[in-house]
């Protein structure tokens, strides 16, 4: 095997990023962000509500959490579905107890499969974020723009119709995007997305159809990542989330508002033995002054004129 001569060509070696989606910026040198009422931290809780089809394709890759046993995978199909029958309601109950109105990233197919679930999320005052159609629909550059646009449009039709909410936020399964995804999201009225893991603050992205905000979503303190990829214990998850909060809270005194994001999965944190750890995390964070718990959409709206 040998490499072509142009393996040593670097067409995007230039100042800033090697693409045109956003500009580089130093998070510690930006104009401080001000949250409503002088809050130091915007607490952004995003609970994933997901459907993993029994026949989900393996190519070009599977979204994390995908079924992994030989077909028909009774084990993980039903384990993930546990989140939709029990787990999500356990989390909802805790959020209601704490008086929190948050965000739920919901696969579009939930609107037709489990309308009662979506109704409960909406009735408790939570925001619905589009999470594509189902966990078998990963976004990637092998999809034609028409096919990908079709998935996005159908997801939004279902969720907007079922919730009466504008549904302007997006989270891709596995946070995967193709080259076209931001353009297609903007074309369909999406104003912010949660896929990019490169910042603790909102920032502006460019698309062919206007701008889009990138909203922070913690990657490595996500409950599923900690439990199912790192195989770390619940107390270890709690410690890392607290440590994350402490640093962001400390920085907010000097650098302005920060976003503390807390990604949850109904089939992970909604388990009976885990939910009390979630209670501990919420209690710890909410014990601090200057924590504003809001939907991602509210945080995006507050940031929009500042970034």
């Amino acid at each position, binding site marked *: *095997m*040998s*490499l*072509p001569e*142009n*393996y*040593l060509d*670097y067409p*995007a*070696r*230039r*100042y*800033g*990023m*090697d*693409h045109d989606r956003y500009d*580089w*910026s*130093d*998070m*510690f040198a930006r104009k401080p962000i001000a949250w409503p009422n002088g809050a130091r931290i915007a607490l952004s809780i995003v609970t994933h509500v997901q459907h993993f089809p029994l026949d989900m394709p393996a190519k*070009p*890759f599977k979204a994390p959490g995908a079924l992994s046993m030989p077909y028909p995978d009774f084990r993980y199909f039903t384990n993930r579905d546990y989140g939709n029958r029990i787990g999500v309601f356990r989390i909802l109950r805790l959020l209601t107890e704490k008086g929190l109105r948050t965000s739920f990233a919901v696969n579009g197919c939930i609107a037709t499969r489990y309308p009662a679930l979506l109704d409960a999320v909406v009735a408790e005052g939570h925001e619905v974020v589009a999470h594509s159609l189902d966990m078998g629909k990963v976004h*990637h*550059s*092998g999809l034609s723009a028409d096919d990908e646009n079709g998935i996005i449009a159908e997801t939004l039709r279902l969720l907007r119709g079922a919730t009466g909410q504008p549904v302007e936020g997006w989270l891709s399964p*596995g*946070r*995967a*995007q*193709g*080259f076209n*995804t931001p353009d297609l999201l903007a074309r369909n009225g999406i104003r912010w997305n949660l*896929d*990019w*893991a*490169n*910042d*603790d603050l909102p920032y502006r992205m460019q698309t062919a159809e206007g701008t889009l905000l990138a909203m922070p979503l913690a*990657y*490595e*303190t996500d409950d599923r990542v900690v439990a199912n*990829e*790192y*195989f*770390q214990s619940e107390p*270890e998850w709690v*410690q*890392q*989330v607290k*440590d*994350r*909060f*402490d*640093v*962001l809270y400390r*920085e907010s005194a000097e650098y302005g508002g920060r976003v503390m994001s807390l990604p949850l999965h109904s089939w992970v944190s909604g388990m009976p033995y885990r939910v009390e750890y979630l209670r501990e995390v919420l209690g710890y964070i909410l014990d601090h002054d200057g924590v504003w718990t809001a939907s991602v959409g509210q945080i995006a709206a507050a940031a929009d004129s500042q970034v």
Partner: protein
Amino acid sequence: MGAEPMQSDLGLYDYLPWPGRPRITWPGGKKLAVWIAPNIEFYEYDPPNNPTRTPWGRPNPDVLQYSHRDYGNRAGWQRMMAAMDRAGFRGSVSLNVALCDHHPEIIRACADRGWEFFSHGIYNTRYVYNMTVDQEREIIRDAFDTVRKHTGQELAGWLSPALSNNLWTMDILAEAGIQYTCDMFHDDQPMPVKVKSGKLISMPYSLEMNDVIVYNSQKVTPRHYGEIIRRQFDQLYKESDESGMVMCIPLHPYLVGQPHRIDAFAEAIDYIAGHDGVWQATGREIAEAYHASGAYDAMTAAAARHAQGDR
């Protein structure tokens, strides 16, 4: 290129057991040289494929992994640098040299602190696998030129991009004037590397102190990483009463610079800096001291004696 038969041994160093080696002394009578090597990297959004290794797990663009690494250059580097400033450590930057073009602001902040830059290739998504010798010489030349142009520094060290290597890599690094390589993990002391020309040192770097191994492979918690660093330090510090050793902490700002990880690391290096016998050095300084103290020649001679059966 025809398929070369595989070798059973790297053939780059002679066996030299720990007991009975010539004693290493560090400047100022310090016991243990501790150096921190932040990998300041740029991973490409749409890199070309290399038949031996595909850069991303998902088809380009792998937005999640790309953006995770980009976190280091937007946010993580500042937290890492603040922790090192506080503990009085200068960095020896393992640099994807294209970062000089992309983010000169980061380069300037490192240079202003007197940090050393060594080469970690052009991009971390370009591997030397399947390169011809001339292609690999070209990236070495590019690295020397780019670092000189942006920082005025003459490269002394090398860590191959993503630790990809060819069997001839060490020879052409030494031929180009590189003084130390970080690609081998066989020792806690600097050791001579057998190259065709020049003098090359294998500088103790580390897999197991390296946050990318700790976090991405071993899935260790941040506080346990802090514990690992202290235990490694305590043991090497004790053993360095007999002869100077080297401890390296390789970092990646996209990992150690995360808010849930930075404090555990900062506390660990504060602990190290609190010991009088620690020499807070750079890779270049350790290589220079190794030559100046006669250790390079003494180790070379000891290894030759050992190979001849004088044990």
